[in-house]
């Protein structure tokens, strides 16, 4: 054995460590792969050795190789071996490797469960920490289920280092094992008020992550978060909370109203840019949620915009970027405020940073009728300047987006838009040809008035060769021809010179275009042909008609030869048709009617989702088989293949040429009727265009006449500029006209008709469009179903966490506790489900359903809960005093509060929501009852009870914002040092209860400060006449009381002892001893620690709320004796001072007026203690009244000591 050891160390001398490996790789640049594979072989050898140090070294090297992209999952088992090493050094290496390469698919991962559980409960906090860290990276549903309970216990660990890690990892556990959320949630909520800022921040972090996914379940936490927000000074926490509120406000607009004020204050006060930015963001979210009817919030908007402007103008590119980002959110609801900063946005368009330019582009959505042309013009110049194609493409899409947004709302002149689109076709190498094409089609179809113009432009496009020239290479842009050909064909009646266009479309060069475009060409050639035929026949020009036919017969064969099936098929079909027509023509039969009948019928745009929204007729089961399916083998090779090129079907949809005019009219009428009655039909808003059209006397408004006889040369001067100029003139004229009308109106008004008293400024609505345009809305099928679920992803992992958290826990929901294996397998059937991944994934959903059912049952409870929030929300902005209640773990915080005008104390259930309402609503008495009832429950359960009087109390008058000046309270702990030596440290706290008038409970926290294991601890005191320790029955006064636990190194725990007290008017001390056995490697020793247990008079007091009227009666009754003290040299603020008295001496504030407060408390034997605390300059005077003078004087003495330290 010894030999083996020696051999092991010798071997190791020659092993490479991580540094050697790195160096080796760097030295083998040329044959890195070879070198590494050689190293991996060595590592495999090392892993086979017994020495754990060698293994750990090997695993460490593997971790490095993993970073370089090598799969190390083959070593998973060895990694687990290293994880289970007893030494932290090796354990850490193992966990690191595991966190890098373990995942749900790693099969050996289930072997780790017990090891991890052992590490989690390890006495060394770093073993626990490293296990938590590792687990956070590779937690699986199984691990989560098995370890949830252990981790939950760690959430109350004495070390904040462990607590914060345990809290954070809970989020991962929830994700993998959603059932754990409800049992763990109360504790998580508790951690929001953990004394350690790190733990608090972790809890906020977790709840924010949870709430971000399912915000509605966390609305009830809003009051708590609100309190944190007004009290916390940690910017990280604040940012998280503020972000969370941003997610909550859309669900509860009233919350937004409450938030505006504190957020505005933060915006004004904070110096941290990140916090400022998040505040602005949330204010924006709030404003969006209340977007309508909040005129008084324009100030907030102004503030936001103004702050954002500062960000955008900052030289820091990051701030600039974020400023623009936030600005774009404001844009959605308050475009006007953003437009005021158009200069800034346009300036950012010139920024050298592409991200910033893109962000600035976003802001351009905020265009209006007024500035659209101007902005697009500016963008067009950028398009010309732009160097990279990506940015240019981005510009192009932006131009199209801003023009087409909300149904072309901002376009007043569609001719201008068409010419912009035509100009954009000059862009070479753009990927967005199809986008331009789609726009052309859309506009031409939906804006009837523009068709003539569009057709002329399109025919020009078809004519000009530049698009066809090198089409296949410059891919994208030739897509435009698709639209051009279709528009010219479909609306051929508007063509000036159809024959010329026809010839252009039949040029041999066309065959170089992509197949789908050629197909459209072929189809539309016939449409053109039909139009020409009709024209010629009407003119009785038979020879010309025959010429055209001849042209087709000659040219069509070039398409028949096409390699593209679609083109070929259409071409040959049409060729036959034309040949047939030719025959008829030869016989002098008029054919035009029939040929055009092929393309008769009106075209209606259909909404993209129309098909999806067709309701399923009753009695039709889409999932039922029509024929029973055949066996799999047959259908295998018959998978539907794409036979034809993927095309946009939209424009080639079959029409119904057989429907005659009457039928069409009838249908149209019927449809209009239906649409009017159909709530889901998106009716075209009475747009100005429409009004314009309907209004009588439209003819008077000058419509721009464009001389279309002037041939439009696309590559020439940008035509759109002309429109800009024309548009300006037109508007000017309009304005003049309007002024005239206004004058008239005013005269009319003077005569007494006050119908319209609105003042006309030039707003968007006043700019009348140049064309008589009718933007046809897209059609929807009859009875279209509203489909909100369109965008819900069924695979969303966060859906499982959509769990109601307010319901009480059912027994079945308890977390699985560590049990012996046999018991576990027999008891939980889930264990057997493990391999069935599918089943697993369904589980949460089932659970969810169950919750839903329960929800209904517990409606009553729910309503009550809702009331709390409602109440909180319904109130005016609170004057909540910020207070950090930093408490020891395991304490219940009972917050109470006083209102002055409607005096009443109220205790709120600490478990439910520890939030403090500072409202004085008379409607609360009823609810109070409920709460009192509820309160009893958790109180009894509580191990250590401590009531903390309100650290914050309310000034009599409604305070607004004044609250911010009060600094947060320093952390306070009521635990006092009892005794300490090198082994152990004891702190204690004494608590009484009103129910037991002669008993107090002493909670002693024992902390092991040594490396030894402490056991057999026993506590004994020398009883006095007045006070004695309650010992187990049958034991004598000299026996000690055993401490019910043992203490591993570094661990602390709390033990409770009950004392019986006779008289409580005097303080007293009890001598005592703690004996224990300390065991370490060297052996075990008996140790003793003496202490003096001090029962102060304060420790007999119990925080009790008091109504101010009862308080007044008590003082008036006259059976209280009085005493007073005065302490000088106090610099602490009155607020903190009161909090201190409340905390350390267990008083509650009855009322507070300026720097004067009355306080109340009660002893366990029912003595009333009333105080009047007055703060003067640097001094505090306390006048006390109590039913027992001795008690009072002792209390005041103790208080004097406390105050002296202030």
């Amino acid at each position, binding site marked *: 054995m010894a030999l083996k050891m020696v051999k092991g160390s010798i071997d190791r001398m020659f092993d490479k460590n991580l540094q050697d490996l790195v160096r080796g790789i*760097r030295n083998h640049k040329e044959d890195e792969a070879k070198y590494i594979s050689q190293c991996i072989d060595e590592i495999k050898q090392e892993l086979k050795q017994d020495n754990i140090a060698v293994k750990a070294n090997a695993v460490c090297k593997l971790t490095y190789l993993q*970073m370089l992209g090598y799969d190390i999952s083959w070593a998973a088992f060895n990694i687990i071996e290293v994880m289970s090493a007893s030494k*932290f050094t090796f354990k*850490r290496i193992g966990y690191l490797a595991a966190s890098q390469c373990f995942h749900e698919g790693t099969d050996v991962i289930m072997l780790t469960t017990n090891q991890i559980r052992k590490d989690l409960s390890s006495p060394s906090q770093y073993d626990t920490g490293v296990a938590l860290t590792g687990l956070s*990276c590779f937690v699986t549903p199984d691990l989560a289920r098995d370890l949830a309970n252990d981790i939950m216990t760690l959430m109350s660990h004495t070390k904040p280092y462990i607590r914060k890690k345990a809290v954070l990892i809970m*989020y991962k556990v929830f994700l993998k094992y959603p059932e754990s959320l409800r049992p763990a949630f109360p504790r998580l909520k508790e951690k929001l008020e953990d004394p350690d800022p790190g733990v608090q921040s972790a809890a906020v972090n977790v709840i924010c992550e949870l709430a971000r996914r399912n915000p509605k379940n966390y609305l009830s936490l809003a009051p708590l978060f609100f309190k944190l927000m007004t009290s916390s000074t940690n*910017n990280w926490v604040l940012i998280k909370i503020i972000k969370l509120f941003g997610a909550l406000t859309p669900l509860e607009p009233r919350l937004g109203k409450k938030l505006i004020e504190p957020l505005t204050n933060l915006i004004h006060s904070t110096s941290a840019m990140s916090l400022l*930015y998040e505040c602005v963001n949330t204010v924006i979210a709030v404003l969006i949620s209340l977007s309508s009817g909040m005129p008084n919030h324009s100030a907030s908007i102004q503030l936001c915009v103004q702050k954002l402007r500062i960000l955008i103008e900052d030289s820091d590119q990051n701030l600039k*970027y974020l400023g623009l980002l936030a600005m774009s959110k404001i844009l959605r609801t308050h475009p006007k405020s953003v437009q005021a900063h158009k200069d800034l946005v346009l300036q950012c368009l010139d920024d050298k*940073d592409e991200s910033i330019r893109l962000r600035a582009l976003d802001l351009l959505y905020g265009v209006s009728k007024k500035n659209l042309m101007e902005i697009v013009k500016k963008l067009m110049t950028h398009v010309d300047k732009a160097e990279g194609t990506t940015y240019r493409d981005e510009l192009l899409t932006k131009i199209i987006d801003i023009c087409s947004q909300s149904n072309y709302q901002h376009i007043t002149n569609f001719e201008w838009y068409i010419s912009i689109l035509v100009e954009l076709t000059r862009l070479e190498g753009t990927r967005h040809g199809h986008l331009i094409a789609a726009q052309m089609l859309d506009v031409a179809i939906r804006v009837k008035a523009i068709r003539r113009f569009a057709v002329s432009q399109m025919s020009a496009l078809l004519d000009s060769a530049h698009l066809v020239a090198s089409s296949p290479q410059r891919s994208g842009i030739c897509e435009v021809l698709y639209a051009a050909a279709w528009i010219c064909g479909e609306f051929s009646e508007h063509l000036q010179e159809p024959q010329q266009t026809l010839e252009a479309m039949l040029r041999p060069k066309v065959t170089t275009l992509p197949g789908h475009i050629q197909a459209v060409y072929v189809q539309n050639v016939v449409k053109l042909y039909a139009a020409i035929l009709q024209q010629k026949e009407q003119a009785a020009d038979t020879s010309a008609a025959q010429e055209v036919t001849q042209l087709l017969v000659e040219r069509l064969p070039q398409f028949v030869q096409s390699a593209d099936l679609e083109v070929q098929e259409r071409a040959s079909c049409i060729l036959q048709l034309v040949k047939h027509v030719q025959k008829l023509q030869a016989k002098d039969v008029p054919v035009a009617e029939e040929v055009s009948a092929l393309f008769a019928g009106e075209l209606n745009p259909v909404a993209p989702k129309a098909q999806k929204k067709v309701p399923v007729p009753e009695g039709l089961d889409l999932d039922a088989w029509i024929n029973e399916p055949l066996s799999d083998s047959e259908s295998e090779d018959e998978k539907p293949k794409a036979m034809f090129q993927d095309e946009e079907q939209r424009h080639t949809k079959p029409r119904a040429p057989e429907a005659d005019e009457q039928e069409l009219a009838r249908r149209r009428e019927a449809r209009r009727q239906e649409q009017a009655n159909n709530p889901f039909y998106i009716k075209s808003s009475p747009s100005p265009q429409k009004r314009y059209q309907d209004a009588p006397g439209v003819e008077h408004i000058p419509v721009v006449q464009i001389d279309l006889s002037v041939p439009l040369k696309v590559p020439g001067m940008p035509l759109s500029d002309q429109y800009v100029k024309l548009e300006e003139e037109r508007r000017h004229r309009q304005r003049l006209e309007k002024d005239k009308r206004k004058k008239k109106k005013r005269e009319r008004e003077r005569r007494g008709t006050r119908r319209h008293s609105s003042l006309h400024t030039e707003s968007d609505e006043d700019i009348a469009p140049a064309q008589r345009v009718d933007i046809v809305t897209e059609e929807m099928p009859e009875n279209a179903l509203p489909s909100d679920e369109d965008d819900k992803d069924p695979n969303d992992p966060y859906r499982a966490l959509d769990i109601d958290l307010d319901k009480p826990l059912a027994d079945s929901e308890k977390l699985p506790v560590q049990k012996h294996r046999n018991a576990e397998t027999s008891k939980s059937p889930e264990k057997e489900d493990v391999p069935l991944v599918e089943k697993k994934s369904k589980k949460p959903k089932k659970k969810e359903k169950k919750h839903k059912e329960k929800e209904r049952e517990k409606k009553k409870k729910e309503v009550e809960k809702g009331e709390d929030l409602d109440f909180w929300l319904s109130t005016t902005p609170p004057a909540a005093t910020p207070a950090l209640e930093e408490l020891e773990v395991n304490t219940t915080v009972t917050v109470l509060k006083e209102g002055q005008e409607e005096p009443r104390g109220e205790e709120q259930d600490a478990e439910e929501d520890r939030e403090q309402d500072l409202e004085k609503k008379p409607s609360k008495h009823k609810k109070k009852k409920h709460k009192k009832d509820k309160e009893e429950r958790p109180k009894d359960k509580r191990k250590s009870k401590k009531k903390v009087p309100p650290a914050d109390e309310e000034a009599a008058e409604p305070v607004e914002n004044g609250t911010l000046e009060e600094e947060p309270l320093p952390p306070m702990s009521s635990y006092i040092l009892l005794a300490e030596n090198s082994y152990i440290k004891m702190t204690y706290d004494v608590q009484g209860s009103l129910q037991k008038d002669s008993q107090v409970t002493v909670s002693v926290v024992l902390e092991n400060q040594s490396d030894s294991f402490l056991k057999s601890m026993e506590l004994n005191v020398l009883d006095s006449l007045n006070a004695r320790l309650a010992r187990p029955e049958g034991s004598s006064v000299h026996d000690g009381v055993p401490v019910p636990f043992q203490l591993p190194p570094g661990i602390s725990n709390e033990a409770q002892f009950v004392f019986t007290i006779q008289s409580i008017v005097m303080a007293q001390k009890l001598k005592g001893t703690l004996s224990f056995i300390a065991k370490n490697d060297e052996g075990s020793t008996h140790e003793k620690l003496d202490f003096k247990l001090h029962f102060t008079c304060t420790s007999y007091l119990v925080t009790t709320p008091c109504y101010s009227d009862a308080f007044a009666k008590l003082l008036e009754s006259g059976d209280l004796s009085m005493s007073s003290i005065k302490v000088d040299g106090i610099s602490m603020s009155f607020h903190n001072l009161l909090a201190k008295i409340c905390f350390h001496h267990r008083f509650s504030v009855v009322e507070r007026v300026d720097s004067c407060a009355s306080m109340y408390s009660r002893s366990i034997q029912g003595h009333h203690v009333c105080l009047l605390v007055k703060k003067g300059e640097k001094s505090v005077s306390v006048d006390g009244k109590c039913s027992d003078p001795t008690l009072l004087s002792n209390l005041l003495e103790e208080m004097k000591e406390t105050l002296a330290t202030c």
Partner: protein
Amino acid sequence: MIQAILVFNNHGKPRLVRFYQRFPEEIQQQIVRETFHLVLKRDDNICNFLEGGSLIGGSDYKLIYRHYATLYFVFCVDSSESELGILDLIQVFVETLDKCFENVCELDLIFHMDKVHYILQEVVMGGMVLETNMNEIVAQIEAQNRLEKSEITVSLSHSRLYTSAGWPFSRTCPGGVRCEEHQPARDAPEHQHWRSQHQGPQPVPVCLRVEDSRTESLEPAEPSQPCSTVRSAPSRSPASGPGPHCPGAGKSPVSTASLLTCAALPISRTRRLWM
């Protein structure tokens, strides 16, 4: 949530890869490469946010990065994180590294990847920010180092393996052997000084430095680094032959450039927010 933390150098060599979401190794490498190409294109004086796109998670994710001397620190985060907050977090992380390694430079990350991971584990856990207070982070790391050290002294085997691990952050002698005689130099104000002490009698550190400058100069020539020519390595010393290169004579190798003092960012942008 933070999805991934990547640290790579100006040539795209990964120095730390930490994903909080499972990706196979090949995909991880691909993500590192793509991220590198995205980040490389950007000047130092433009904003530090990149909309993630196709890499991880889709449109909800952003890349937030900072460039320090020779290293890029890239965090891939979703919208629940504050952008400026993460920028500051990167700063905290680097400052912590600086404290732990004493004037941290790329070499420290190259040779002590495991330690960098341990430090990171105290800052971010499972994709969530664990601690932002640098003193607290450093305290925990030091406590763990002490624990590890105590285990090693207890351990009977004084293998060079573990004593040379370099904890607690006395810079290991790059030769891989812990130079006991230079241990006090840990407290020496001038780090460079004790490094240079090695140059005379012990050839090892000299070798290392040569090796370093050579690596840096070799890397651009690699075919796998198509973009490396775009950003020329600041000290591309001519590919030195076997002859030792005196480190004092040439420019100091890139990878020894102190991350914080040579940070490419202007001071104003290293501001901290939670102070």
